[in-house]
């Protein structure tokens, strides 16, 4: 194969990869959920990270989006594992933006993600979640979320 042909093939492959990658990045989304009216409403999700062939997980990253309608409570998200935690909030309700992506670096295993809000009043939300390797590759992540709700 000539160099120019090889370059063309490589270029095509990179374009295809760029087209696929956003889909992979968006592959794990909680789906719209509701936090009920109670001020203490909390949804809890166990999320497992594992080596799916891309390598051991280094960290879990999540970001929450406070969905319309616009309401006064602020929606927040926390990750817990092995006695460590991180948290973030979506400060603007009802827009396309999310909270800053937060991550917790605790390797393979089950992380617990909690979504809650700052005060009473129903809120809708969704969140993204991805298990990543130390080199930034997406790796094994729970596909189907089972959540526990405690209001």
């Amino acid at each position, binding site marked *: 194969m000539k160099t120019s042909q090889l370059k063309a093939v490589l270029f095509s492959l990179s374009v295809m990869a760029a087209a696929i990658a956003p889909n992979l990045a968006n592959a794990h989304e909680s*789906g719209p959920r*509701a936090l*009920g009216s109670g001020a*203490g409403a909390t949804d809890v999700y166990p999320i497992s990270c594992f080596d799916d062939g891309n390598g051991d997980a280094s960290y879990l990253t999540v970001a929450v989006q406070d969905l319309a*309608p616009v309401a006064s409570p602020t929606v927040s998200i926390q990750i817990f594992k092995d006695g460590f935690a991180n948290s973030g909030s979506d400060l603007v309700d009802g827009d396309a933006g999310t909270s800053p992506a937060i991550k917790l670096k605790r390797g393979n295993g089950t992380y617990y993600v909690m979504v809650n809000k700052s005060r009473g009043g129903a809120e*809708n939300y969704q969140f993204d979640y991805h298990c990543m390797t130390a080199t930034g590759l997406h790796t094994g992540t729970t596909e189907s979320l089972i959540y526990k709700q405690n*209001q």
Partner: protein
Amino acid sequence: MALFASQKMTTINFFLWAWFYGWANLSLANSSPGFFEMTADLNAKGWQLQAKQLSLPQILERLADKAKISIHYSAVSEQLINIDCGSEDLAGLVKCAAGDSADLMFRYGQSTTHPSEIWLIGKGDTTAVVTSSPDKPIIVKDKSVESRASVTKKDSAKNPEENLLVLAKSPDPEVRADAIAKLSLSGTASDAPIKKILADALQDDNPRVREQAIAKLANDASYQATEQLHSALQDSNASVRLMAVDAAGNNTQLLQQALTDSDETVRLLATNKLQQLTKTTTNK
């Protein structure tokens, strides 16, 4: 003469003073507070109570003050006692202090481990109830306390699920809702006792209790809750309808029904979920 008189007065004064001093000490001894010490080791999740030469009412008053709760007691003995109690929660501590001398009832607010109010009914005639709280103690005559004498004794150390089933019948709707929510974390909706509790909770007067019941049923893989979800979507309270939509999963019929809900939050959640389902179907 004057000197003798002076000496006599000094002697009299001495005896008067000695008598007063002795009386004062005797009085202080009779009203001595005894010994009371109560600690809570939050790290070890334990409570300790030691008391010597105090009556149960005196112990309860100090305990109420320390723990910042209200304790009502009636017909309990005034006998001085010594106690040394340890328990993982406040309710257990009070039970230990009361021993077999009284029946107890606990009221829980937001916390299911720390009671906000306690009643002790001595195993004798009930003619008055004394309330001890961080505020001034008051005495009220309340015959109706007798009817509560046999109510629930809580033992948080044994079988948490059984405890939740009891709390799910509490007269306090917040306690009922909390218990139903915690049932989500233990047992399944197909277990007969839980199934009965949840069936009752779906008809509860309080919308928060109904919310929790529908959330539990709909998210329990062992239970088919389609019929209950459709009923919940007709609920008068928007939060209950929201929970029904939240738990609808892939039920597009239910989600489409919710598109015409009177509440904006319910409509938007249904819209978002349908969009998500459409996106998922398209990506396959």
